[in-house]
């Protein structure tokens, strides 16, 4: 089998405290595959995502490990090379679309910016692509909405804009950090359907970070369970959900309302 798209080996991250935020975790992700990372607050799942993209803020620091992506170790790249990977190779969808979008910039310009920054298009071409992308994420009336500002969009529509930005440069890997947590359940269902559709259309690999086992069951091929910085269990989603081997996974599943 070929080398996986993303291969994280023995990653450890510290924030200077007595225990590690991420403690010697290893996992991989193949092209087109969805790996769900599940855990509660403070388990280290978001820190893992930020470490892969080298977006950790001090005092957060990667202590050791390797993050191979498309055959290169991201931890050894220069900042300039890394900037190329972010967005074009791996992009990130955040939980909070309101804080992640620039409130004083038209959404079309924010999508186009991703293309221009990576030298994929001129501004005028990029704006045309922005319309296509908004259309692809099913924002109704895309040619008109590209000129709107984020506050003119609902929560679900804003998350679609975020997804359009993340997909602008056609990255092979998207990291989605609680992409639907702030949304109502009916809107969440629509965004999950959209992500599934886009994944199939663009053969996207996805690292899906969530606290919701229901979302994992709907979206993931494999699942990794994190607890206090450690990866306590990983495997195919059916195996883990039906026959959890780890004590913590079992307790987490049992705590889901109506799981019994």
């Amino acid at each position: 089998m070929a080398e996986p798209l993303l291969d994280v080996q023995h990653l450890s991250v510290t924030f200077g405290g007595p225990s590690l935020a991420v403690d010697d975790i290893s996992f991989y992700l193949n092209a087109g595959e969805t790996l769900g990372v599940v855990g509660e607050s403070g388990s280290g799942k978001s820190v893992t995502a930020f470490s892969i993209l080298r977006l950790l803020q001090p005092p957060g620091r990667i202590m050791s490990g390797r993050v191979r992506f498309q055959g290169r170790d991201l931890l050894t790249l220069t900042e300039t090379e890394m900037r190329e990977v972010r967005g074009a190779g791996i992009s990130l969808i955040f939980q909070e679309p309101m804080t992640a979008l620039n409130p004083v910039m038209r959404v079309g310009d924010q999508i186009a910016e991703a293309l221009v920054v990576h030298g994929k298009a001129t501004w005028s071409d990029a704006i045309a692509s922005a319309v296509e992308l908004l259309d692809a994420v099913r924002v109704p009336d895309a040619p008109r909405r590209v000129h709107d500002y984020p506050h003119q969009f609902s929560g679900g529509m804003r998350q679609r804009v975020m997804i359009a930005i993340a997909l602008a440069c056609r990255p092979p890997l998207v990291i989605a950090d609680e992409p639907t947590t702030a949304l109502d359940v009916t809107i969440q269902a629509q965004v999950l359907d959209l992500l599934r559709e886009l994944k199939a259309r663009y053969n996207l690999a996805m690292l899906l970070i969530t606290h919701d086992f229901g979302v994992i069951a709907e979206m993931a091929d494999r699942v990794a369970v994190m607890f206090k910085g450690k990866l306590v269990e990983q495997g195919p989603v059916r195996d883990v959900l039906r026959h959890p081997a780890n004590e913590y996974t079992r307790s987490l599943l049992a705590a889901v309302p109506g799981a019994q």
Partner: protein
Amino acid sequence: MATGSPPLVEVRHLVKHFVRKQGLFAAPSIVKAVDGVSFTINGGEMFGLVGESGSGKSTTGRCILRLIEPTSGEVRFRGENVLDFSTARMRLARRDMQIVFQDPVSSLNPRMRVGDIVEEPLVIHSLGSKAERRARVVELFQLVGLESGYVARYPHEFSGGQRQRIGIARALALNPAFIIADEAVSALDVSIQAQVVRLLLDLKERLRLTCLFIAHDLRLVEHICTRVAVMYMGRIVELGETRALFSHPTHPYTRALLSAIPVLDPDAPRQRLELDPSSFERDAPLKEVGAQHWAAV
């Protein structure tokens, strides 16, 4: 909860309209946050009020306690309309009607010791001597599963689940008969959520509380409530015994909402139902669609 005895809480045609100024010259618009809501809660019941953001469920809860003044309608508590009460009478009535809020960070004063936070309702209502109040605080801490040695600490020294326990202890200080839990466990991690829910169910039994459980999480509501009302755009679109409502959802919105919940089984058939707003009449009255089950269809 014998049939025939009057319900503890009776909400009739509750309306709350907010006036929203559009600008200097534009006419103000009216947001019908709660638009003719009626339901009853029997003594000892855990009644669920569910809906998505903006459905009016929290506004309904607040109107019941008059934390927001309703535009019109009736809220009968033990048969008396609390909306007719004077300010002084209302303050007295609130001894019996308390609320636990969603956000345990913003609902606890960060500069007060948690013991004082829990004691405050007793001070406001001038109940007991200093020593008696202190003893009551210790008792309340034990009741909600917190060590009584923690009374001198500040809210930031506690985890989210512990803070929510403090909020519950404060709500219980005056021995209320009725508690509104407004998304009281929504901000918590799932394992902590399970603990706090267990605590609420346990307290409800031990203290014979009646509870209005406001939530957006249908799985949770299905799990703990005896009856449920589903709100959509300021109105109750469906109401019934939990089992009947979840097994035979009748209103198009309830169906869409239930079909949107992610299920734990990766192989379960998924049939998302999109809500078609033209498939129902917004103003339709609730109609009996089964035993103890009503829908606005």
